[in-house]
């Protein structure tokens, strides 16, 4: 004897299967995301580095961008004239941030000095208002520009070597690229 129960017509079973399928998809997606998650790329910066995106004030970000552009200009002038231009000459050319204009005053009113050590040249700007923007050092060797920052109204050690700057509490500005960088 075989007992056959006639089941009611309806979408209950189909609904159950659809829900089960949705559950399986969600579970497998969660599993895949969990297993394949990218490692946390934001390694903390070394003590002598500071991030240009997150670590600088607005004025410092402006000065940093200007100094990077000015670094290329200075390298070109040095190649053309055979010697490095002084801050006064750069100010005369109205090259920011060396030019003494209202913008420079609003961004800390830096006083720029110049030092040359062999092949390497350095421009040091001592801030008059460290709460707006710290003091800055632009170092140029043959290969590129290094920019250092210290939030104090003080001149960098001479000569401005890496070790000496770090020891004196200066921080090199670097750009880190993480998942948050979208431009």
């Amino acid at each position, binding site marked *: *004897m*075989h*007992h*056959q*129960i*006639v089941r*009611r*017509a*309806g979408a209950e079973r189909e609904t159950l299967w659809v829900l089960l399928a949705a559950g399986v998809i969600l579970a497998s997606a969660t599993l895949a995301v969990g297993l394949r998650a990218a490692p946390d790329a934001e390694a903390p910066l070394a003590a002598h580095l500071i991030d240009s995106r997150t670590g600088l004030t607005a004025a410092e970000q402006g000065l940093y961008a200007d100094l990077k552009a000015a670094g290329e200009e200075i390298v070109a002038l040095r190649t053309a004239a055979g010697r490095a231009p002084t801050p006064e000459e750069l100010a005369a050319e109205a090259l920011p941030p060396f030019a003494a204009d209202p913008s420079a005053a609003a961004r800390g009113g830096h006083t720029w000095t110049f030092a040359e050590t062999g092949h390497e040249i350095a421009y040091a700007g001592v801030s008059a208002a460290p709460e707006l923007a710290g003091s800055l050092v632009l170092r140029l060797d043959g290969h590129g520009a290094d920019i250092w920052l210290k939030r104090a109204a003080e001149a960098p050690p001479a000569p401005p070597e890496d070790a000496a700057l770090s020891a004196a509490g200066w921080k090199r500005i670097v750009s880190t690229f993480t998942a948050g960088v979208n431009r």
Partner: protein
Amino acid sequence: MTGPAILFDAVDLTLGRTVILDGVSLRVAAGTVHALVGPNGGGKSSLIRALLGQAPHRGTIRLDWPGDGPGTVAYVPQSVEFDRGLPLTVEDFLAVLCQRRPAFLGPDRRINYGAALDRVGMAGKARRRFGALSGGERQRVLLAQALIPAPDLIVLDEPMTALDEAGIAIFKTLLAELSAAGTTILWVEHDLAQVRRLATRVTGLNRRVLFDGHPMEMLSPERVFDLFSAVPRRAGAERIAS
């Protein structure tokens, strides 16, 4: 293999807010000709749809098959809706309903559609266009499709309504043959005289079961009037049931 017994236990069916069936409990014995009678809208066709698993019923409907597994259930609908202009022959129509092979590949030669048509008196009309058949002939074709393969349970929804005199005679012969073969027959019918003559048991249904018993005893004028009256008397039904 003889046919199954059917048990309806407290079957309710509500569509929207309309109560179609209300606590229908009914037992159809194996191998009997069980007639369902009742007024239009009484839930006869709905009970059949529930039995075929096509209605959202509540309660239990159970088929007790004598063998190890379910057998063949055949269904003859009251009528078939289709486009009369359809270029479909009688054989094509049977092929659509009866074979596993897609009908556009042609009728399956292993299935003898001719024999089934012969049993309903439609021999030689296999190539006729289905839309050109008369109502009685179409009803015979619907009977023929229920015979392929040989059914263990056959559910008939007012099969005699469209049949002519000759068709009715053929139907009676078929009913006798199927009954002799042990097939369980559940038969919805309006014609109470035929039910008295041919059925072994009859159930009066108007939303609920009003009577259930042997046709000769049950189809008395009083009960029939009660069955077809606008407001079925619940108390009377209970008196009869007890």
